């Protein structure tokens, strides 16, 4: 896999396309793409982690729920995540451990605020390698 993710510009929003050899990796890369929009991932250290367990009706919804859960943790606990370990993923369930640290204004430059992952132009593609696309409301 040449790249983990890419950023897609949209009229008033921003989207990401994330890749992976399997869906677990694509979901993890989508989360990294999300935090790369918010800050420079290189500046973030792994000092704490949060466990996430989610259920959703299908894989697309699961992806949106997953990213929105991380946005919620950022908004409420001010945690920047950089590494994601998806331990379980099927069509309706996800379990993950995310590593990162709290925002430290002397260390982290915050770039853009992401309000939510949306269902607009949402894609989960299990072709030759996995690919997911999400558009964020910023």
């Amino acid at each position: 896999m040449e790249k983990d993710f890419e950023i897609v510009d949209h009229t008033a929003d921003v989207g990401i396309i994330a890749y992976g050899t399997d869906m677990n990796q694509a979901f993890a890369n989508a989360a990294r793409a999300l935090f790369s929009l918010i800050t420079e991932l290189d500046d973030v250290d792994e000092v704490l982690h949060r466990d996430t367990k989610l259920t959703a009706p299908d894989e697309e919804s699961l992806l949106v729920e997953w990213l929105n859960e991380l946005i919620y943790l950022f908004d409420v606990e001010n945690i920047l995540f950089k590494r994601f370990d998806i331990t379980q993923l099927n069509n309706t369930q996800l379990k993950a451990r995310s590593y990162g640290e709290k925002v430290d204004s002397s260390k982290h430059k915050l770039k853009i605020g992401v309000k939510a992952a949306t269902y607009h132009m949402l894609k989960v593609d299990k072709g030759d390698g996995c690919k997911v696309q999400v558009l964020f409301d910023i």
Partner: protein
Amino acid sequence: MPAPWKEIVHKIDDYRWEIPKSYKQGMSVPGLIFTSESMLNHIWEEQVFQQVANVAFLPGIVDHSLAMPDIHWGYGFPIGGVAATRTKDGVVSPGGVGFDINCGVRLLRTNLTEQEVRPKIEQLINELFVNIPSGLGSKGKIRVNKKELDEVLIKGSQWAVEKGYGEAEDIVVTEESGCIKGANPGKVSSRAKERGIPQLGTLGSGNHFLEVAVVAEIMTETQLRLWVSMILDRYLSGFTPAPGALGTRFVVII
């Protein structure tokens, strides 16, 4: 070569264009775009016809999926999209209500003159930055718990005035007196409240900004109203002015 939209839309008159139900299988009603012919070329490039047609699928939609002249690409609904749905069997679409619910604009008038302000514009801007938290991750000076937040949700601007953050006169010139009656904070999820609490008393982030401007010319009352509503429209269209230099218009872009 004729513009591609000419094969799709029916001209009703110079400013009304209909997208027939046959455009996309599943549309319950036709689409109706209020715009001019020259603007249609631009609208077509933005592919918002698709979004107007998609709205026509909504259960319970009445009459037409409408699009106002400011139509552009949104989430599900186009920006500038309007639809009515029946209360009996219709749906409420978050895309139609708008994701930035109650995103608004306030105009505060001072009695200061340009001569007084201009020499001190830097100090003024610095002071505004200190006192009005803005940008991503900023936290307001106002600290409330969830119970107090419920009061904010019920009372609206009245709450702020009671706490000394505003004047009673402010409420008189705010629509709905700064409070929509019948609000039920119980309908707001606990998580939404957790996300909202730190933002209270901040300017917000993203395309929210504050500008200090000079009234250069006082026109008739009607024109003044027009001006204010044009500003509103500009903000609502997501337009962000270029970073202004110091002077009569200082634009703070977050």
